[in-house]
């Protein structure tokens, strides 16, 4: 467990460092996530070493948002001026983003499935090749 804690915090620290170097355009935690992913893929880090702590963190994410959420108790005042516009824009636009992303990707998957269903060995081969050349 201690090794896992160390690895996660180390990648967080590296991520923060990189983030600082690029003017904070991407947050350190997101960079840390991508770097940890790459390190695990390249087997620089054995995945068993982080499994315990990483699973603990990802399984309890909602808890870690509670303190920030309680911050709404003081921050809500800044919203009062334009609250109708802010609420409507936020709600409608959030639903639109969700619908567009979910729907678009599902369409992609349906197309891919149709392509795969056409029994064609060479096509399957080429898609397998495309897979292995895609690290993400």
């Amino acid at each position, binding site marked *: 467990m201690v090794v896992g804690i160390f690895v*996660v915090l180390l*990648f*967080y620290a590296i*991520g923060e460092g990189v983030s600082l170097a690029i*003017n*904070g*355009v*991407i*947050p*350190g*935690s*997101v960079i*840390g*996530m*991508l770097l*940890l*992913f790459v390190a695990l*893929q390249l087997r620089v880090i054995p995945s068993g070493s*982080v499994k315990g*702590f*990483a*699973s603990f*963190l*990802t399984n*309890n*994410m*909602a*808890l*870690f*948002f*509670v*303190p*920030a*959420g*309680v*911050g*709404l108790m003081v*921050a809500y005042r*800044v*919203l009062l001026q334009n609250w109708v516009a*802010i609420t*409507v*824009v*936020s709600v409608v*636009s*959030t*639903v639109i*983003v*969700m619908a*567009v*992303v*979910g*729907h*678009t*990707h*599902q369409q*992609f*998957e349906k197309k891919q499935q149709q392509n795969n269903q056409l029994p064609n060995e060479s096509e399957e081969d080429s898609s397998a090749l*495309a897979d292995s050349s895609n690290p*993400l």
Partner: protein
Amino acid sequence: MQTILSSDIFILSIVLGVYLLANLLYKTTKIALLHPLLTSIITIIVLLKILGIDYPTFKQGSHFIDFLLGPSVVALGFLLHEQIEHIKGRTVSILVSILVGSLAGILSVIGIALLFGADKVLIATLQPKSVTTPIAIAIVERTGGVPAITAVVVIAVGIFGGIVGPFILDKLGVKSRIARGLALGASAHGIGTARAMELGVVEGAISGLAIGIMGLATAFLVPLVMALFSV
């Protein structure tokens, strides 16, 4: 008495205790509106008011839990590694879906805000609402919005999207686990991802990836769209 109430141990106990009870309530009732994040936040705010604990004291006391937010995002890299077979060969479709979603988000904010007669500052403030807080703040600082309002809106959008998300996706017939994970992460950032984790590890891992891509896509698209509209 007041020193005990404002001690870190007491505040940490409140957060954990309330969260555990909220989880229990959610699991026994299975009512989506009673999501532990929402009920915990409301209960804790009420408790702080009753006990006379101010927000700075609470913030300091609960810092340890707040701190784990960053590591939990890093840990999503592990989930991504474990779920790699779900992502393989889907790089293009994932990127395109989120780019389209990000653009739809930006344009819909402009469209609806203009209906309300909102000014440029408010539009700039609301544009990164679906993006994880640090990226959202970075975007707003460049486009001339109000970072304090953005920070609040981002959290509120996350809670809203995380709670209603699965129902909206059900209604729309979005059944693919990958599409659902992407949609939750792209629209409601980390809180959407926390909800996606409840749906399953595939949804959770993809959702975590979506936070990063959505942040980058929006950071890239917002200045572009703003430039197009103001010329």
